[in-house]
């Protein structure tokens, strides 16, 4: 098991109208990319709760992608602007806590940017591969499991 090549687990939180559609376009254009990323679909980046990112890390994600419509292109006019403010503050908070924000890729990918989606996934995967498995956060979780088992 130890010798197995590290394949990071990455969750992508994307909006329905731009990035999800962009990833569809990557498919219809048959552009290949790494299979490590799995997409959770949301109506809008404005819907993405910061708690979900924490839960993903807590459940063992090695990396996270958050992506939506470019500024001014939001299907709902301003959801992505709200999201941007949320990420600006959340990201600096995580950094202050010593949680590696390099493991979260924030991006704008439009419905026309199929190639950008593929590149984004590949970049993220290779970056996370370099960083290695995210154990910091998981370890504190495991510590708990061990303790429970101990009892």
């Amino acid at each position, binding site marked *: 098991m130890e010798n197995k090549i590290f394949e990071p687990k990455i969750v992508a939180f994307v909006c329905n109208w731009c990035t999800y559609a962009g990833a569809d376009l990557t498919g219809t254009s048959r552009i290949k990319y790494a299979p490590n990323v799995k997409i959770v679909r949301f109506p809008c980046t404005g819907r993405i709760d910061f708690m979900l990112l924490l839960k993903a890390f807590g459940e063992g994600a090695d990396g996270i992608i958050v992506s939506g419509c470019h500024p001014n292109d939001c299907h709902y006019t301003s959801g992505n602007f709200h999201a941007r403010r949320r*990420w600006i*503050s959340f990201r600096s908070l995580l950094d*202050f*806590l*010593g949680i590696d924000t390099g493991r979260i890729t924030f991006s704008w990918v439009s419905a026309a940017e199929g190639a950008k989606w593929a590149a984004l996934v590949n970049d993220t995967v290779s970056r996370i591969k370099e960083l290695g498995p995210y154990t910091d956060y998981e370890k504190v979780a495991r510590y708990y499991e061990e303790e429970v088992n101990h009892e």
Partner: protein
Amino acid sequence: MNEYQTIAAGLLSSGTAAMVIGYSEGSAKRVRPVFFTRPEEASTLVFDSRCVQNIAVYLTKKEIRTEGKIAIIASLPVMRSIIQLASEHQLSEEKIIVIGITPSGEVKQFNGFDALDAYVSSTTIEIEARYREKIEQVEKMTLTERWNFWKNELSACFKCYACRAACPMCYCTRCTVEMNQPQWIPVPSHTLGNFEWHIMRAMHLAGRCVDCNACAEACPLGIPFNLLTKQMILQFKKDFGGYNPSLKGLNILSSYLPDDKENFIQ
């Protein structure tokens, strides 16, 4: 009797206020919050540097709300809390008289929120130097050092929620930690859950925290989690020009500017 005692006694004896919330001498040279309804009690009111507990927290309690008109001895952080709570529709103007005591010791009675709002808006939230230094110290650490620092600090937390109880802004009738469908935050206290709790708390106070320190003062273990909200206040100043509790302004996270600046979205 001094000025605020006289005002408090007057309000109670005239029946203008049904209750005065303030501080009085407690045990072991500490002050305790008091809820006076009789004018003669007013002479035991105290106000000094020991009065750090944010008594605005009581204003949203159901027991207090039904009491009629409340007067409150309010330090600047308490005044800020009142304005913030008012902007969140938690307090009604007719039911509160603020006997404000400014940082310079001046006693100012506010009968309406507009005047209080104007006063609060004329001040700004400044993070004390000792906390700024501590924050800088943490920021200068490497990522791993920071992680270890916080892991160490937060592993101690046993989720007594004293911080939540002390905070006037934590007035939700059902806190997210008490939600079990889905269970956002695990009930037992372990480091991961503690992280989640404190991150969530900081995010929920984003743009709302009045920096009164009541949470940290309340923590039985002295965990410096108030650095999180303080760091956010400093960061907001850099990113969005800062905030001040106000009846007119918008909350930092429920508003935006089309040209908000960031450098990390690819």
